[in-house]
């Protein structure tokens, strides 16, 4: 299949950035879900040439990696309750420093883009293939190790104030046990979704979508509605409190975590960040937000970019799987073009995110998050229905309940990744049949 002329690639990449920018600031929306919906409803090949699809997707994913900062800073739960611990970005919002949090994130995102582009040009083509070849037979080992570490390293947030030893142990362990419970519950749901015909076979590429919308998107939106966060005035000034040292350290940690997550399957950005955070002993809210920016660019854009690398050809992430089902780039010229598109898309996304953050900071209390959340909840149900039918909506409700459980147990939300990790681990170790039998499904 002939490679498209550069002018066409630019147009489609620009369309991708525009598309990604317009939807990525809405809470609960994930670029992979929306691209899947686009493919399912409109198809690719009629409106858009298939060779252009990877570049459209790069533009959209870059935009998502940047613009989603808006939803995570301005439209996430920020209640006063102690039941749920706040993310640093939420604390910034409560202090009227939402725009500063976005700027910190953007610093990270730009650093992440530069690291990614540099790595794509000078490191990935030479270093990644041999390292990947040497370590890829042991991916199950790494994956199991990271999951085990997630459980072992859960920091008990309570327990100190118990009056007796028994009470202290219970307060500490109810959170840890809650996390394990959420992981296995998610895992069982994931196993059922992946291995049974509960969802229509026509939604092969999107069968996990309602589950993930529920775990991370819908549960987030429901918490927004339940918590009724205060709409505090925000300062739209272009000022950040950080240091060069913190920025460099956070960029290094974020890049490390993002790269681990991008290269190895199933390991997500959050898991990569956990590992990298420990490795580099990262501390400080500013450093955390900056590293999130770096991490998400490396994780989302970096993972997708591996699809372009001719001597490695790794398909990482739902976006890459979706695109590769239609067209996989094959030449170095496409790889270099992708590098250019990443730079272009990053520039546009940066300006869009910055401008949007300014506008939102100035008019933060015009529209209440709660109202936006009702609208988003309805859209998420509609997406699930369109992609997977009524059973998809049922899966959405179950996974939403599990996502809410993680919040209620005050445990890591990433335990919901059990929905992906557990069935994959069972499959990798050849126990799918036995597990089906255990659940009474086969």
């Amino acid at each position, binding site marked *: 299949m002939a490679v498209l002329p550069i002018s066409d690639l630019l147009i489609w990449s620009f369309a991708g950035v525009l598309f990604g920018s317009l939807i990525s600031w809405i809470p609960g929306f994930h670029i992979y879900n929306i691209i899947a919906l686009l493919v399912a409803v409109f198809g690719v090949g009629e409106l858009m040439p298939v060779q252009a699809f990877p570049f459209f997707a790069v533009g959209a994913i870059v935009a998502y990696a940047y613009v989603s900062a808006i939803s995570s800073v301005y439209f996430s739960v920020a209640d006063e309750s102690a039941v749920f611990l706040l993310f640093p970005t939420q604390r910034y919002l409560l202090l009227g420093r939402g725009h500063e949090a976005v700027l910190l994130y953007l610093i990270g995102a730009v650093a992440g883009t530069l690291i990614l582009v540099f790595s794509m040009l000078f490191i990935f083509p030479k270093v990644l293939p041999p390292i990947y070849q040497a370590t890829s037979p042991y991916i199950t080992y790494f994956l199991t190790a990271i999951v085990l570490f997630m459980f072992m390293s859960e920091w008990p947030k309570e327990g100190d104030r118990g009056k007796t030893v028994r009470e202290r142990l219970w307060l500490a362990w109810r959170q840890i046990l809650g996390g394990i419970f959420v992981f296995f519950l998610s895992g069982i749901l994931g196993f059922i979704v992946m291995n049974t015909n509960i969802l229509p076979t026509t939604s092969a590429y999107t069968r996990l979508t309602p589950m993930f919308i529920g775990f991370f998107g819908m549960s987030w939106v429901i918490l927004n509605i339940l918590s009724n966060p205060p709409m505090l005035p925000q300062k739209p000034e272009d000022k950040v409190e950080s240091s060069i040292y913190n920025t460099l350290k956070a960029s290094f940690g974020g890049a490390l975590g993002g790269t681990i997550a991008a290269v190895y399957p199933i390991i997500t950005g959050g898991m990569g960040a956990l590992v990298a955070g420990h*490795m580099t002993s990262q501390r400080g809210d500013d450093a955390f937000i900056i590293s999130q920016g770096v991490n998400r660019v490396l994780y989302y854009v970096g993972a997708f970019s591996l699809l372009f690398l001719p001597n490695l050809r790794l398909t990482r992430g739902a976006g890459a799987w979706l695109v590769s089902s239609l067209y996989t780039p094959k030449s170095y010229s496409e790889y270099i073009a992708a590098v250019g598109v990443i730079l272009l898309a990053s520039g546009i996304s940066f300006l869009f995110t910055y401008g949007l953050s300014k506008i939102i900071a100035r008019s933060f209390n015009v529209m209440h998050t709660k109202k936006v959340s009702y609208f988003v909840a309805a859209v998420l149900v509609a997406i699930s229905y369109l992609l997977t039918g009524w059973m998809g909506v049922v899966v959405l409700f179950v996974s939403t309940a599990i996502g809410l459980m993680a919040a209620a147990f005050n445990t890591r939300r990433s335990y919901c990744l059990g929905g992906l990790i557990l069935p994959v681990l069972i499959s990798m170790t050849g126990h799918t049949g036995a597990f089906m039998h255990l659940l009474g499904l086969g």
Partner: protein
Amino acid sequence: MRGFTHYISGLAAVTFFPSLVADLRMGILVPVIAAAAAYFPDFVDFKFGKFFARRDYEIDPAPWDEKKHYAPKLVKIKDLSEKNRYQFFAIEGVVEEILTKGSGTMSYEVFDEKGNVETVMEEYNTIVFTLSDGTGKITVEAFGDDYEIFEEEFGQIEEGKKMLVFGYVDIDPDGSLRFIVSDAPHPQGIADTIADAIEKAYEEGEKIVKIHNIRLPGDVYRRFWVHLDPPRREVRVEMGPIVTPGGVAIGGEPPEYRKFGIARVNVPFIKTYPKPTRIDSFSGPEIAFRRTKHQGKTVVKDRFLPWHHGFSHSMTMGVIIGIFVFLFAKLFGYSHATDLALASMIGQWLHVFEDQLGFMGSNLFPPITKDVIPGFKLGESGSGLTNFSTAWLMIALMIWNFNRFTDPRPIPIGDAKLLLYLIWPSMIGFGIAIAKSFKLRKEIAKLMDYYTNLEAFEELEEVGGI
């Protein structure tokens, strides 16, 4: 070192055994036990040990509201007593009688960075009234900066007005309770209790103090520092700003007149680490004060987190883990039980060794050794440099071993050359850490100079020289 650094050392230990690497390649994941063994010392200390640890003194400057799990706790007046002196609470009640309203001059002491005292005189406004909540009544006082904030919040205070007041409990000279309007507990209570614990430890041998942190609404924390000053024989507690769990200060500095608490200690004590103890997010520390000998004199020595780096962090424990893993693996018929047991033991030993690079040290060979062997002081446990250097070294060793034990080799270059390519970032990191550690050692040497002069200090005191 941080948890993952230890954990990854266990993962790396496995890769030195060709039989275990072959198992991993076949999808047999049992060797991951070695990583768990490497992390086990911290797991057992932080998930169990800390909750079983004895607490002789429990300092809770701002008890949590039981429902909301943050301070201040909403209390009934009848529930307050002398025991609550300096603790931070909230009371909801009605203004019964305004006793005084006026202004005056107050004087208080402040400390500079070197601990020198300066007396400050300041004009202040004040209001004193009685508050009743149906269970009792208490005298409430707002003065100085707190008065300004109080007036801003409630406007004119009139009899019959209902209000929710924050502040700390104090005791009047006549023994009655008084509630002082503030946004933080008074640090004097913390200083007094620690000083008492040191004195009791001198008499009785050992006292363990648990200091709780101060969690406020919105997942933020009031930071405070405990300075142990052996040459001055003082415990100083400094109340700091409100900070996020990430350590960013977001304001709320207490006014100078209730920022410091200072307590005199009537027995000699020494401090083993040259920095004050900072308490903010996560959980508060435990400090053991133990009677010991220093240069032939009986003194009290502090030990941070006494339940940490004990038996779990010993080489002996590594042997026990090895035996346990061997028996477990044999029981389940795992064919490489010996190698797995050795990898697990080495993983745990690596943990002990890595921690020994820091300050706390460990009791390495119990029951032969009885006390902690001081660490090499190469860097603090939270140092990003040493953590990354160690973790990277382990990653490098894993890649190196995977390559060595695969035929044909995925990376077709010589072992020594590949190892050099892989480990150079760690070598640079360790080099910088060693260079940096000299500065810290200098600080500790300076601290030890203090203690060397301790005897002279006491002699001067006896003859009235100070």
